[in-house]
């Protein structure tokens, strides 16, 4: 089975070496953290930026923003007194959501200073059932093998224990009164065929008792007894001693789902019916048949029992009030969600002060949006929507950062392209409006873009504002603006239009109009291609291809070809049989893209490194047949040595779009050390039972440029390949620590005379092997992903960003991980001049280099970086359970004034000099005069 395939397109002899510019500065720079008083103010609130020259200004604040998610709930319990609903989700989260607005962060209302008891706890293992009693919550973790008792006000753990049950066991838990007399309510657990009673204070076992006849059943309790209820039997256990009395019952088949006790009866809904059983009788009674497949929990409110079931577009609530069964139809009033099917719902019933009956329905829709509807049903039966959470954001399959268009460029496009809807007058008015804004911007000295960014999304002068496009596993597209961290548009594609979402590609960048994105989804039968405008989600075009999608490749284009394709990237799909399908965007004829691919046939290379395989294969584009291109295998590299089985666990590629400012490192003696800049290079990591192998392979020839084995190490391996260096992390089993290793490649020799003429192009066929330097360091924390900063021109020294298992992002300058760091005793003055630090195996943990500051960004799966308009700064996006966006300056913001730039001192100095000048004019005149009088 194909788990993940990685492939890439290469053009041998095609990539020009980038121009030689200013070498990266080698000065030692430490990052200066953010001032605490800046963060205490609401971060990301927009403030004006004072422009000094075209790209200079003052950064007045930090701009990091988090979107916190909980995941899709599997269990939910309402607590109206605490104004919260507790949810246990499939993202291993237990959270208290505010009933008022669905928030999980504490909110303080200024006049009342009221703190809502909302919180979130994230576990490493899956969370399960949730039971509430009084002020405590019981949560089962890891398939019932662990129990956590939590305080429901702040979500802190009171105690936790291992139940000792196996994962196949059926488990159920319930709270009882205080049995052991310590004033705290105790807890009963059914684990397989064993019932245990535990103290509520510390979880210590009071008694345990075995029941007969296999597993299953629901555990429930009244004041004197504990009951295990099955469809054919009821076991009554004495609450003090655990003595079992067994009796057989009739009237119901199948399993007994969770339920509750009301009026000495146990109520449960199963198989589309509402059942109850009197605890002292031997007969199930059937109360009502529930219409609809999606049935909610059985809600017990005093003597009343409620259960909801979805029937077509409405929800039927069956209620048993004082023994009388009745039904009521309600409609979840929402403007969008009506067309989206409901997945799950949780019901709560309450009485208003006026004595009316109100309901709360927590509904989870197929697009993974979570909404609370509540209130007294209106005459039409509709319930008001209180809030909505986009929980699809916790499960993004793929995401990209898209630049927003420059307003001036955009306005010009509007005029020149003549956007169809706008007439001549409107176009002129729009232009006048834009120019007025420019004027206002100039006069006020701020970025006036804010004032009408609500109309259309535009970038800011610094380029910090971006658009994040993400696709969730359920197939919902999101467009998120980073400055407000709000979802500005979303589109649920549904299983019809989109199978399993795989990849998102920016096809046309925002510097061209209109920008375009491509989403590739696939299932067993077909591949879906969804083209859309990333700025607003419009122009959605869906195409289907009857192929089984494996991976896409991007074909590098010349300027003429780019123009032919309307400034779009040429994407080709590779299917399971390694056939290549060239894609044509909706506006481009298929012949053009085919012609480009044909012209590029012999020099386009791609390769496949499949996860859990131990061979890498390289291909080139072959003959064109009717609707696709065949591919020809050029090389194959079996990985592993001495017959040991090694499996591919990770792969990393050079990002060919990144600018390289310098092709050499300038050494302390003014010599230059040329970098080995092979853009056909890729890295593959393999794992065997005891070691990790790292291979650097040339994608054109398949030759292993360098390989290294780390003995007694284990994964997960995270890699990043940038310019001429590779960084990878792993866990060292011999010393039990996290380690990071850096491999840097340099040219053995390079004829500098030829650099400007012929050698600006790189040929994988004619290049000598590089010289390799490597160093390893000890990391202070575990790592879940690594990346490197990207800047516009690549001049700024790189910074490595490590997403840690402690939910933070740690930044290290590249000079921390430099394999040229000499041993302490051998350091020379030349090394010092170059800015090399003596080698120290331990990387320091400095809180001031944590770019998430005091916040936690939960369960980061990947971090991505993107350049801003400022050379010093790049923006960072971390995606996991939460979404986090910030910016980082690896070598301080050298092209903008410091946030605490001392304007007062500047004015004082200028003023002082002015006074001194005036004074000296007078003084010199006086002196001249007195000299003449002499």
């Amino acid at each position, binding site marked *: 089975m194909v788990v993940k395939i990685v492939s890439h397109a290469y053009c041998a002899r095609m990539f020009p070496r980038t121009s030689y510019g200013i070498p990266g500065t080698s000065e030692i720079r430490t990052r*200066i*953290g*953010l*001032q*605490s*008083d*800046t*963060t205490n103010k609401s971060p990301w609130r927009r403030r004006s930026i004072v422009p000094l020259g075209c790209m200079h200004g003052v950064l007045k604040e930090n701009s990091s923003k988090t979107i916190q998610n909980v995941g899709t709930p599997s269990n939910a319990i309402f607590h109206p007194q605490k104004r919260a609903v507790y949810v246990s989700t499939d993202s291993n989260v237990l959270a208290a959501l505010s009933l008022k607005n669905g928030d999980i962060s504490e909110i303080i209302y200024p006049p009342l200073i009221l703190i809502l008891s909302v919180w979130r*706890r*994230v*576990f*490493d*293992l899956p969370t399960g059932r949730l039971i509430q009693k009084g002020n405590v919550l019981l949560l089962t973790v890891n398939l019932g*093998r*662990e129990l*956590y008792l939590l*305080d429901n006000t*702040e979500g*802190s*753990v*009171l*105690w*936790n*224990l*291992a139940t*000792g049950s196996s994962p196949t066991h059926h488990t159920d838990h319930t709270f009882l009164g205080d049995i052991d007399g310590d004033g705290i309510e105790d807890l009963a657990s059914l684990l397989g065929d064993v019932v245990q009673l535990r103290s509520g204070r510390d979880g210590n076992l009071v008694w345990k008792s075995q029941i007969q006849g296999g597993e299953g059943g629901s555990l429930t309790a009244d004041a004197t007894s504990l009951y295990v209820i099955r469809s054919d039997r009821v076991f009554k256990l004495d609450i003090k001693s655990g003595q079992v009395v067994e009796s057989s019952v009739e009237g119901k088949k199948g399993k007994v789902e969770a339920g509750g006790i009301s009026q000495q009866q146990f109520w449960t809904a199963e198989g589309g019916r509402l059942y109850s059983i009197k605890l002292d009788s031997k007969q199930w009674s059937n109360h009502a048949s529930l219409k609809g497949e999606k049935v909610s929990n059985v809600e017990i409110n005093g003597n009343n029992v409620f259960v909801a079931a979805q029937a077509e577009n409405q929800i039927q609530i069956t209620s048993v009030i004082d023994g009388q069964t009745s039904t009521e139809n309600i409609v979840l009033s929402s403007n969008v969600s009506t067309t989206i099917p409901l997945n799950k719902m949780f019901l709560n019933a309450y009485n208003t002060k006026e004595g009316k009956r109100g309901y709360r329905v927590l509904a989870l829709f197929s697009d993974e949006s979570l909404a609370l509807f509540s209130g007294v049903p209106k005459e039409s039966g509709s319930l008001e929507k209180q809030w909505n959470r986009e929980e699809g954001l916790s499960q993004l399959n793929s995401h990209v950062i898209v630049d927003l268009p420059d307003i001036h460029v955009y306005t010009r496009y509007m005029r020149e392209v003549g956007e169809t809807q706008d007439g001549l007058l409107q176009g002129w008015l729009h232009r006048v409006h834009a120019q007025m804004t420019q004027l206002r911007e100039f006069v006020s000295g701020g970025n006036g873009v804010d004032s009408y960014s609500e109309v259309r999304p535009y970038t800011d002068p610094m380029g910090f504002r971006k658009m994040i496009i993400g696709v969730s596993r359920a197939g919902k597209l999101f467009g998120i603006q980073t400055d407000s961290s709000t979802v500005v548009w979303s589109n649920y594609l549904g299983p019809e239009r989109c199978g399993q979402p795989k990849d998102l590609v920016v096809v046309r960048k925002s510097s061209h109009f209109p920008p375009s994105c491509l989403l590739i989804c696939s299932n067993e039968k077909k591949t879906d291609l969804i083209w859309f405008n990333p700025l607003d989600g419009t122009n959605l075009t869906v195409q289907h291809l009857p192929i089984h999608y494996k991976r896409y490749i991007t074909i590098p284009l010349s300027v003429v070809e780019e123009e032919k394709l309307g400034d779009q990237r040429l994407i080709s799909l590779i299917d399971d049989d390694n056939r290549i399908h060239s894609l044509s965007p909706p506006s481009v004829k298929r012949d053009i893209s085919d012609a480009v691919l044909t012209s590029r046939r012999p020099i386009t290379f791609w390769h496949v490194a499949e996860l859990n395989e131990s061979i890498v294969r390289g291909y080139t584009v072959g003959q064109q047949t009717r609707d696709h291109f065949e591919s020809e295998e050029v090389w194959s590299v079996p990985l592993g040595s001495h017959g040991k089985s090694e499996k591919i666990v990770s792969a990393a590629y050079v990002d060919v779009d990144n600018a390289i400012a310098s092709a050499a490192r300038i050494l302390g003696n*003014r*010599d*230059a050390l040329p970098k080995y800049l092979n853009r056909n290079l890729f890295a593959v990591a393999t794992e065997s039972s005891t070691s990790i192998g790292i291979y650097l392979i040339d994608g054109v020839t398949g030759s292993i440029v360098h390989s290294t084995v780390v003995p007694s190490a*284990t994964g997960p391996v995270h890699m990043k390949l940038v310019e001429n260096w590779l960084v990878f992390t792993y*866990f060292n*089993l011999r010393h*039990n*620590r*996290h380690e990071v290793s850096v491999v840097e490649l340099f040219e053995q020799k390079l*004829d*500098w*005379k030829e650099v400007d003429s012929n050698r600006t192009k790189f040929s994988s066929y004619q290049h000598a092997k590089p010289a390799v330097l490597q160093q390893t360091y000890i990391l202070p*924390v*575990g790592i879940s992903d690594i990346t490197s900063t990207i800047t516009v021109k690549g001049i700024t020294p790189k910074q490595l960003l490590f997403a*840690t*298992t*402690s*939910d*933070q992002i740690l930044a290290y300058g590249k000079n921390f991980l430099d394999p040229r760091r000499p041993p302490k005793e051998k350091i020379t003055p030349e090394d010092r001049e170059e800015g090399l630090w003596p080698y120290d195996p*331990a990387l320091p*943990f400095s*809180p*001031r280099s*944590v770019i998430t*500051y*005091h*916040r*936690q960004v939960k369960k980061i799966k990947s971090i991505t970086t993107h350049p801003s308009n400022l050379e010093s700064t790049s923006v960072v996006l971390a995606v996991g359970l939460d979404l986090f966006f910030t910016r980082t300056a690896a070598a301080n913001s050298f092209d903008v004034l410091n946030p*605490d730039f*001392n304007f*007062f*001192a500047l004015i*004082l*100095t200028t003023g002082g000099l002015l006074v001194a000048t005036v004074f000296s004019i007078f003084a010199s005149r006086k002196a001249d005069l007195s000299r003449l009088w002499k």
Partner: protein
Amino acid sequence: MRFCLVLLAILSIVTAEPSEIGSNDVTLRLRGQKGTYSTLCRKDGSFAISDVAPGAYLFEVSSTDLIYPQLRVEVSGKGQMRISRGEDNTQTIPHPLRITAEGRADYFTPREGFEVMSLLKNPMMLMMGVTLGMTWVVPKIMGSLDEEALEELQGGANRQQLEEPPTWEPPTLRPTITNH
């Protein structure tokens, strides 16, 4: 083969009360060849990790507010534990464990306020000050010298200038870059 083993310990912090730990998200992880175990810290600062298989582990406390040391835990087949800290695993810590935070994590640099002294300490300011001072002081010194000494000083300078004409070479790039 899994030994039921409970690692009980208390997490303590430097200054504040233990309740401070419970209200924050503190996750404790054991990482080793046999797998990863984790738990959340309790309200009173204690924690327990159960069912740990024998083997060697790295013990990490992930907390945002406080910095804790990394520990190494070895669990023997008989269920005995050896907890140590430091790179060379020499300092053994008795069980039950009491882990004290090394300090509070300070994520922010203090903001620099405006001071006249800091302005005057600026190297440019110092240079300016010295130059201004010299323009005032030097004529005074020259004036205080007698004429003979002054002439000698000026004459000596002139002679030296005649003997040694100034030689100044413009800085060049190293031939390694230009020639090779």
